[in-house]
Structures are given as C-alpha cells and as structure tokens.
C-alpha cells in the first residue's frame, strides 16, 4: 500500500465529524476497530495512564458502543432532545505512518448548544488509525482538553 496523504486522512476525520454532528452515533462506533478505544484523560494530566489515573472518559470498545447506543435513546435525558453539536478540525498532522497504521494529531473545537447555553470544548486530539481493507479505522481516539475544568460546561454529554 502507498502512503496516505494528509487530504485522505482529513477526509476520514471530516466524515467522523459529520457523523457526530448528525448524531449518527452507531455509525460513528463502527469506525472503530474491534479493540478500539475512546479516551478523555484528566485535564491536568493529558498523558496519564488510564489504568492508574481517574479519566473523564475511559471507554474500551464495548463501552464506546454502549455510549453510542445510549445516545440514540430517549432515556439518555441529557441529550433528549439532542443538542446542536459542531466539530471543527484543524492543524491535522500525520505524526507517523507505515503500511498498516498511522498516528495523527489534530486540534479540534467542539461546540455544543442547548437551552440557550453554548459550551466550547477546545481539544488536542490524537488518533491511532489502522489501515484495513475497508479503509481507515480508529484504534484509539484520545481527546486532551485544553480547558481548566469543565466549567461552566458541566459535563461532556455529546461525543467529542
């Protein structure tokens, strides 16, 4: 296989963002490999180990699928009705790649609007992507928040 260009990687990330912005969460979960994970480390310890530190999100594949599923239900009260979400992706950098995988760093801003509040999440997102016969898949999505406390956001109810 030839090396992927940044534009090809960006297309994939924009696709992921579009799914999240449209609340197609189950389709989003399908972008992950079977051993995929979705992580939000503590804000003050972006490089922490999930087995030792208290994370904000520490989803293995099982749990990220459950998270996606929960968000399709009316009983996920916090997101019923769904808030408006918009992901903006910038500064995409391929850090390294070989035949089978890539690691990609991005800056992202996620906006969430509900009940006349607008919450902004400034993120440094690092992906480990797998190259499969079905195209790119996410092995790990690590969202490091560049904010000092989820205040006044209160929480992360949508997927970042």
């Amino acid at each position, binding site marked *: 296989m030839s090396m992927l260009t940044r534009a090809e990687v960006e297309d994939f990330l924009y696709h992921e963002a579009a799914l999240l912005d449209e609340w197609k969460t189950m389709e989003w979960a399908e972008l992950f490999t079977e051993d995929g994970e979705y992580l*939000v*480390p*503590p*804000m*003050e*310890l972006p490089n*922490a180990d*999930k*087995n*030792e*530190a*208290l*994370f*904000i*999100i*520490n*989803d*293995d594949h*099982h*749990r990220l699928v*459950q*998270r996606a*599923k*929960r968000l399709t*239900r009316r*009983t*996920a*009260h*916090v*997101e019923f009705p769904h808030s408006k979400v918009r992901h903006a992706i910038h500064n995409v950098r391929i850090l390294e790649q070989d035949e089978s995988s890539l690691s990609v760093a991005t800056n992202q801003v996620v906006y969430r609007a509900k*009940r006349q*509040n607008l919450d902004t999440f400034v993120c440094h997102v690092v992906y480990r992507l797998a190259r499969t016969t079905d195209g790119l898949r996410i092995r790990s999505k690590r969202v490091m928040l560049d904010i*000092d*406390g*989820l*205040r*006044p*956001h*209160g*929480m*992360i*109810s949508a997927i970042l």
Partner: protein
Amino acid sequence: MNKPRDAGLSDTHFIRIDPERCEFLVPRWAFTDQAVLDKERAEIFSRCWLYVGHASEIPKPGDFVVRKVGGRQLFLWRGEDDQPRVYFNTCTHRGAIVCRERQGNAKRLTCPYHGWTYDTRGGMVEQPGASGFPDDFFANGAKDLKSPAKVDSYRDFVFVNFDPEAVDLKTYLAGAAEYLDVVADQGEHGMEVTPGEQAYSMRANWKLLYENSADGYHAITAHASYFDYLRATVGVFREDFNPHEVGGGGKSLGNGHAVIEYQAPWGRPVAQWVPQWGESGKEEVGRVKAELASRLGEQRADRIANWNRNILIFPNLIINDIMGLTIRTFQPINPGYLEVTAWSLAPRGEHQEMRAWRQYNFNEFLGPAGFATPDDVEMLELCQQAYQNMPEVGWNDISKGMNRPDNNQGDDEVQMRSFWIRWDELMGAARHEKV
C-alpha cells in the same frame, strides 16, 4: 423577587411539615434567592466543617494542593515537620494569590507581587526592602499566612471550620464518622486519592446536588439508560437482583448527615466480582475479601464488601461507596450555579488489575461524562430553570417515606428531610428577617 406571598410566614421554619398528612415542603425560593445564599454563606459555610482534601494528596513535606472551599481560596500544604496545614491563599501584604499552581511541592512560596516569602509553617521569612519596615514589624507572626479558625482531620479526610466557636470535628461528624471508618478501613495499608480530578459544574443550586446524591427514588427513571448499559455489560450475574428491592435503606446520621445503604448489581473492586473481570479478576476479588475478613472479621468484611452506600456529610461532602469510591465536594458560586470536584479514592497498594477496574468502573456511572451523572446534571438544571414558575408554583415536595418512619427504604426521602431540618435550624437565625 419571585416568592410565594406567604413565604417566611410559617410559624418557625422555612419548611412546612404536616405530620398528619405526612407532607414535607420546601420553598423553591430557597434555591433561587441571592439573599438565601448570602445567609447560607454566613450561617452554614462559615460555621460548618467543610472538606478540603485528603492527606494522601500531599504525601511529602512541601507538597501542596489549592482548593476553593466555602467561598474561600485555600491551600493545603504539608510542612517540613510533616504536619498538614491549611492556609488562606492570600498574601498578608496586599492580598495576591500566593500559591499559583494547582498542586506541587515547595519549601517556600514567594508572593509574585512584591516578593514576600513564606515557609511551610506559614511563617513570613523574607521580604525585599526590609529596611522600609521597623525591625519588629514582622515579629510574632504578625504577617504570617492566615489559617482558618479550625483545621482537623478524621481518617485522613482534612476539614476546616471558619468559626472559632465550632464544635470539634468528631462531634460534628456524629454518626457519619463510623461511615468514614467503613470507607477508610477498606485499605490494608490505608487509602489514597488517585491522580486525576474531575472538575465540573451544574447550572443549579448546590442543595439540589446534596439531595440528588442519595436520591434512590430517581434511579429507575432518570438512569434508565444506565440500567440498559448495565444489562448489556454484566448481564444477569445476580439473578436475584431486582432494582426495586435493594434492601437496606436510608437514615439520618445526625447534624444533617445521612446515608443510604443498598445492594446493587455492579462490580465493586472491594469486593464484588462481575463476569467482565474474568478469572484473574475473580481471584483478586477473592483475595481482597479474604484480607478484609482476616483483618476486620467476617461480619464487617461482608458489610464493607457487599453493601453500597452514599454518604452525605453536611453541607457539601459526598462519599459514594458504590462501583468505585468517590469523594465529591461542591461549592455554591451563585444561587443557580455550583462547582463540583470529584476524586477516586482507593486502597493504597491495590493490585494493579483491580486499580484499573476501579478507574474504569468510576466512569461507568459517575463523573461528567459517565452514563448517569450527565443525566443528573440535566435533572438538576431542569429543576433550577423551572423554579422560574414562582410565585405561582412555590413548593417542593420531599415527603416520600414519611408514612413509614421506622422503615425508610432506599428510595425514600428521609436523607433529604434530615438535610433540610438541619439547614432550617442553621438558617433559623434568619427566619424572622426578610429573606
């Protein structure tokens, strides 16, 4: 102000209790009124013991963490004599914040504004341009860092009290002390706060979170999607489990403290296994349980391991001993907004597999992106917003279980009533004023 016209006119209390009807009502303006919050700052947050941090967060001499507590800016600093102390984070000169990092280690802290320097005992040890002051100007601790009137700890939980007249911590904790023992006894070598704090917030009044933290009644509806997750995750590992019948119940622990104790289907690193944890997890849980039994006796080990508890320590400390062990404290910022900070507490020297499951578990229900807490935040915000329907709709009802005073179940509201009765007592000084 949007208050019912008869607010404050009930005989002696803000709250209305009708024992005949088994009815307990709380005025909604207690959640919205700035004057109430001002009074709470004076009568509650300036007089009650408030949680600051856990001694394990500052293990070495010189270690510090900064905290907002009861509307003050504090920091906890371990002295070179190994004594943990709490200081107001303000320079005695013109007031600048002295300790500017969230946490760290320092033998001395120098105020960034004019350079006054303090040691770990709070002593003023150096100041530029000292010749501009008389020789004895700084003598006798005149310009040392100031501390809250009282600082004390119980089983490594460090509290402060801004009232020099306050009762001692142990007396204040009343029946809650024994529950702190249940938590602290879980670690063979003591307990420690793990790295990583969850700092979040709610656009709601602080009392709503106290109520919510041991509100068994809302679990089935507000957290329906969490129970779906649980079914998909641990399946039917306990076939006898019926979320409507979790045993135990709620009780008041005195001084506004309360607890609910119950059984639940989720995994507990101390020491309830779930299939998700596999065979090696099963072995380790067995070992934890055996260690508890040999150290504390079979009966106490069973109580610690098999029962969940949400412990409420008035006014703003919650210890949830559930699928993980949480320390959660929250501060009112304004009547409709609070800030929460939460940590995971764990046995020191815990096996790394159990530690990993503990941290994983914490996130399954709890925290600002768990499968339940965001829904709690939503509920509290829905309440807070809807309190705008005053004066026409002016009262909250927390009567559930009043018709069975000797047998309060986990989904009754006794723990909220004990909070409000204490709240009412403390706010009583204000009751005849125009609040």
